[in-house]
């Protein structure tokens, strides 16, 4: 996910709302409480951050298009993944630099990239996880996450109040 594009989308959405172009609409997914996660990772390592749990409404087929941080600061490559909680023994990611959720459960084998990931109510909760990777020391942070998805073909967006701050340290730090 290109961060610049994500920020651009967020700004465009805000401008559209301010101009009255975007009619008020109920959130499709349950809106969680505001959360904040902090953690640290080595430069070049991948930090996983769980940012949202999504459950499709009955009879709907939801396709996840993208997830992008809003209020982004820092320099990083960010990829978005979908994790079917049922495949992970009901579990998921809070913050981790390890691949194992627990012995025998590897994130890399369970998660699927967003873009065309589809699910229904029968799949149960789907966790959206951002994989953050930086090649330089410093802090990478975001205030929330905007998820774009399609419900039975109609594209929608929803912002989740999941903020995070990740400190990337050089070797030996």
């Amino acid at each position, binding site marked *: 996910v290109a961060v610049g594009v994500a920020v651009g989308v967020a700004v465009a959405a*805000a401008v559209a709302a301010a101009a009255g172009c975007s009619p008020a609409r109920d959130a499709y997914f349950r809106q969680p409480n505001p*959360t*904040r996660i902090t953690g*640290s990772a080595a430069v070049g390592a991948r930090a996983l951050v769980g940012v949202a749990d999504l459950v499709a409404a009955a009879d709907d087929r939801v396709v996840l298009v993208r997830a992008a941080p809003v209020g982004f600061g820092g320099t990083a490559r960010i990829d978005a993944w979908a994790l079917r909680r049922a495949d992970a023994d009901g579990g*998921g990611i*809070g913050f981790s630099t390890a691949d194992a*959720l627990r012995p025998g459960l590897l994130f890399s084998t369970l998660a699927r990239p967003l873009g065309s990931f589809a699910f229904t109510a029968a799949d149960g909760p789907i966790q959206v996880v951002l994989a953050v990777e930086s090649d330089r020391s410093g802090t990478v942070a975001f205030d929330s996450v905007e998820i774009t998805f399609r419900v039975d073909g109609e594209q929608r967006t929803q912002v989740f109040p999941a903020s995070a701050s990740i400190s990337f340290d050089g070797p030996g730090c």
Partner: protein
Amino acid sequence: MRSLVVGTTGALLLAATAAGPVAAAPPSPGIDVHVVDASGHAIPHARVALAVMPSGRRVAPGRVAAARRTRAADAHGLVRWSNLSLTPRESRLATANGGWLNLTALVLDAAGQPIAATSLSRYVGSAAASVGRSESAAVVRVPGTAGAASLRDAAGVRGAATTSRQGPTTSRQGPTTSRQGATTATCTWPSNYRWELDTTSTAWTAIGELHVAGDSKATLTYGRTADSSIDAAFKVGGTWSLGGSVHIGNSNSTSVSETLGPYLYRHVLSRFSYGLWKLYSDCAEGWHIYRGYDHNEATRWVGGITYDTTSISYYDNHRTAYWNLFGRNSSFSRSTSTFAKVQLAVTVFGVNLGAQSGSSVNVTTRYDFGAGRSSHYLYGQSAYPSNAPVINASDA
């Protein structure tokens, strides 16, 4: 048994802005009162008297909360105040309590005698996060065997007042002259119902709970604006029963925080002030008479923080289905919209009251995980940590 269902109305005029729906016009504070029996059938023509209770500021014994608003129910048991038209003094009371107005609704029978009461809270401020949290319904159960008959036909007959602490010879000079003794009086055409504050007490009250596993610590921060709904209770004939709740939202100079270390599972407590109110009315005989109703409700958040000496559980260090993994030196914090209700949050004036805390940025939980373990887990019993009413922790 009868029940009084109290609902609220009011135009919630949300105004969207470029920053999102964060600004809201103050709601028009209206209230619907439905008088029903235990089976939910409307009881027509009851009279309901509303009193605005002082909350969010220090109050002293002798303080009076008059039930100034009295209105009769229609044939469907409905009493509607579409707009309470708050007085400047009442608006100041709400402001002192963070925009929350606490009221008591008193139901009177045909003879003008009180037969039921409940507490309710109504948010009249402008914070969007709180507008949607105003109480929508409250129920009070009334001892008695009368069915869903009209309460209008016998209006105006003489009624026997319940036990008086003053005795029938006491003048209108006020209840502070003598609260001793217990006699029975007759009270004709009772009027001017009001709650008079008899006693105040400060009590540690549960505002949340923390569960901490190994190699971690947890912190609950409360305030500096309070945000708790606390049960209210009414005593008739010597027996307390719960009746609705009040919302405490006053601000102190600082927030308070409590941090617990590994393997502690405790309620976190802060101090609130409570008032024991007694119901009085005037009578045609000239008496200022106690009507046998006592009322116990929180009046304000005092401050301070500690944790309960009794453990909530002795071992809940086992994650279930709703868990998230946290690695070394990470943290998780959540500003919660609702904590789980603590059923036994406080005992005050001899009655156990429950409490429920949480909203926006006023109540926050934070977990810090150490470097001693590669895996730490937070979990909920029925939802993931971002939404679970209670966050549990596990290190295995």
